[in-house]
């Protein structure tokens, strides 16, 4: 079962970040990771109790679901429309 970011209201990742790199996008409600502000300290990755912040091994970037800025591609391209975004 694929699990993606729950966009917690009182998010652990946001609390852990000392650089204000994680902020909530008020429009989409998603917590977005500002890569320019990220220093790659791994605090958010460790903090997420659901394991939903990931370190991309190839690029060394930290990634998390940001709901594709309001238009999640997973839902858009789901062939059977099992995934829906409401």
């Amino acid at each position, binding site marked *: 079962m694929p699990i993606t970011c729950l966009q917690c209201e009182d998010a652990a990742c946001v609390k852990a970040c000392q650089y204000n790199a994680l902020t909530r996008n008020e429009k989409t409600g998603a917590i977005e990771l500002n890569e320019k502000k990220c220093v*790659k300290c791994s*605090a958010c990755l460790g903090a997420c109790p659901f394991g939903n912040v990931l370190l991309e091994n190839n690029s060394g970037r930290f990634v998390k679901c940001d709901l594709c800025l309001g238009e999640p591609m997973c839902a858009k391209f789901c062939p059977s429309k099992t995934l829906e975004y409401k």
Partner: protein
Amino acid sequence: MVTITIDGIEYEAREGQTVLDVAKENNIPIPSLCHHEALKPWGACRMCVVELNGKIMASCTLPVAKDQNIKTKSELVKTVRKVVLNLLLARCPHSKTIQQLARLYGITKTTLKADEGRDNCILCNVCTRVCAQLGSSAIATVKRGSEKEIGTPFGEKPPDCIGCLSCARNCPTETIKFEETDAGRIIWNKSFEMAECSICKAKTVLTKEQVVFFAKKSGLPEEYFAKCDECARKETAETFAQLVINPGAHIMKAWGFTFGKLEAKAITASPVLPQKFERS
């Protein structure tokens, strides 16, 4: 809001922004080495210089003001950047970052005597600032003048270092060396063991020191950090599965929340679910 002019085009800027901030927002290329958006401006590398009323200023520390007329491509700016690059290239002739930047300004070799015996550090202080902002301040500049370098207290293993690698990962010239294996890592001559996942006992991607430090800093329980991604996701999936099979009240209780409010005695996986979820 103030309006400033950069290279003849007017841009809207907010009070408190620097000229470099505005340029970055509007995709105006200004090279910089010591600038990092997570950190306060430092003004060390002098690469981001621009021209204001015939004077050269570092744009990263220049606050926007009404009717500023900034030039980023003038001959004066180019000359100054070339001088800076010539000096940087003399200091670290083998740095890929500096070489690439210098090539953009038509410099392939320094006209000065290249310093072969040095590492590629340009003393931009990104490493020490990142470390300080994290709250560990394990490294700092040592000595001064031509002997100035980034170092650890007494040249020994830094007692405050937590092995997060932020210093090395943000170094613009990739000078700070570290070794990494699945079991641990070595940086600044200090060895770190990776923390074990509390569930599957596999090594996590955080050092033991990071787990303790991050937990203390964020006020979150240590168990959050000492758990690998896979186990955390598995746990969440199981909880979700149970929610679907038997959406009874006892599950809600096991999750440690009542609708809309987190109970004080939160168990390991206890989210405050997003509003969307709560409404359903």
